[in-house]
């Protein structure tokens, strides 16, 4: 018998081990839900899977009686739109700020301190300000996401820029490269996969700000719906919605990883000596 430290699961064993926690959680939920529903059939706290299925059927595949919309998809679409727009804006600004502050010492000296201070402002504390300035519409929600994650991406990009070996910049200059050429040909391409990594890390925060903004002022959206139906204790809607949000987050993460692997095969090989 090998030491525990050295024991590796086989491929099949690994699959079994990784699915085990999911199965256990599922089982616990099923048993708990059954017990509660048996004691009180109108219990709302732990709905059965049939009840959740019915709720989703109602939300996703039947038009709403009042508006005629398929609420589930309307919610999904507007939430994703806000999130992606906010993240896109944050990524663009973050990349630009990070690249310039990291690559140009003069820009870095003027903006690094203020960037650090700004990144310490809790974005949610700014939400009222955003609602006052931009009104209760889409702009404020997108702005919250953008403002919330831009400082993180900008600082990460600044750090990644400084991590790129100086030797490459010197080499490009000895070949005749000027400042903009070095930025565009040497730094920018190497930052792109690192930007996607930073976006992956900030998506979780992005969802947080999205749901917070939707909970406070919105007329549709995944976060809005969850907070709306909370009033009726509709766990049969809330739980599938949470699962759906989790799935979307997973999907986005997986997409970014795949794009990175496909487009930047050289990424993650330690700068390639």
């Amino acid at each position: 018998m090998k030491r525990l430290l050295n024991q590796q699961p086989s491929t099949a064993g690994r699959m079994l081990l990784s699915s085990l926690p999911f199965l256990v959680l599922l089982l616990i939920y099923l048993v708990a839900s059954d017990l509660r529903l048996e004691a009180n059939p109108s219990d709302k706290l732990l709905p059965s899977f049939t009840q959740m299925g019915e709720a989703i059927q109602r939300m996703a595949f039947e038009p709403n009686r009042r508006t005629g919309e398929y609420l589930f998809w309307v919610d999904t679409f507007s939430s994703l739109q806000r999130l992606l727009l906010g993240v896109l804006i944050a990524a663009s600004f973050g990349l630009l700020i990070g690249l310039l502050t990291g690559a140009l010492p003069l820009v870095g000296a003027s903006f690094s301190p203020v960037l650090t201070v700004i990144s310490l402002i809790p974005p949610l504390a700014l939400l009222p300000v955003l609602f006052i300035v931009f009104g209760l519409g889409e702009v404020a929600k997108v702005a919250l996401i953008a403002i919330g994650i831009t400082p993180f991406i900008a600082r990460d990009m600044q750090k990644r820029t400084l991590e790129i070996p100086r030797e490459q910049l010197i080499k490009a200059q000895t070949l005749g490269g000027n400042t903009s050429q070095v930025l565009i040909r040497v730094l920018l391409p190497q930052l792109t996969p690192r930007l996607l990594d930073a976006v992956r890390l900030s998506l979780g925060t992005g969802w947080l700000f999205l749901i917070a903004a939707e909970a406070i002022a919105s007329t549709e959206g995944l976060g809005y719906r969850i907070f709306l139906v909370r009033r009726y204790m509709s766990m049969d809607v809330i739980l599938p919605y949470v699962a759906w949000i989790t799935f979307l987050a997973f999907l986005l993460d997986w997409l970014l990883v795949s794009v990175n692997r496909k487009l930047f095969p050289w990424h993650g090989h330690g700068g390639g000596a």
Partner: protein
Amino acid sequence: MIEVRNLWKNYGDKVVLEGINARVEEGEFITLVGASGCGKSTFLKMLLGTETPSRGQLLMDGQAIKAEPDRDRGIVFQQYSVFPHMTVLDNVIAAEGFKQPGFTGLLWGKKRREARKKAQVLLEKVGLSASAQLYPHQLSGGMRQRLAIAQALLGKPRILLLDEPFGALDPGIRKDMHELVLDLWRTEKLTVFMVTHDLEEGFYLGTRLWVFDKLRQDPQAPDAYGAGITYDLPVGQPDPKELETIEENLKGSTHD
């Protein structure tokens, strides 16, 4: 071509180089050896323009050498000298692009086709044409340095600076690289400065050997005095006895 006049370099109280005087003519191949931390790399960086002298002058054609890297001086470092996000071929084409003025350094249309053709010829010459589509991380260390050297020469530099370029390579591959460098030095009529750890390499390559070492020592204040050039030898016909003396002297020197 290069003239060094009473050159000093210190970082705060730490004196790295002191009182260096030398003249170098076009076409010389100078190898710089010395214990680590003796300032030979600092000297190379001053030639490159990434460090500036604290005192004294470093002249190129009678003018103070430019304090930032430019096309006059090509460089190959021990590592990180090639662009990891470009294939071998693109690395060479990019070097062509950097020669152009303009904002992006990207080449289009006819210019790109010409640069591509030129790059392929060059890769053939340094024996990398089979690897043209590979990324640097897929190459061996020797191949990577081949690429770095080829790329550096594309800028048509007047001086080629080599900062321990073969330090990380296997002895067998080193031999090949020596051949390549000597061959390029002869055909391109370059002036070469090469920093190396390996005294024998310094003797074998090049026309002139500089040994960097401290001229005076103060055991109470090891940083008080910097290194100078203690030997300046022509090494066309190496004398094994001399090699031994220098080797012993270097081993005897106590600083890091």
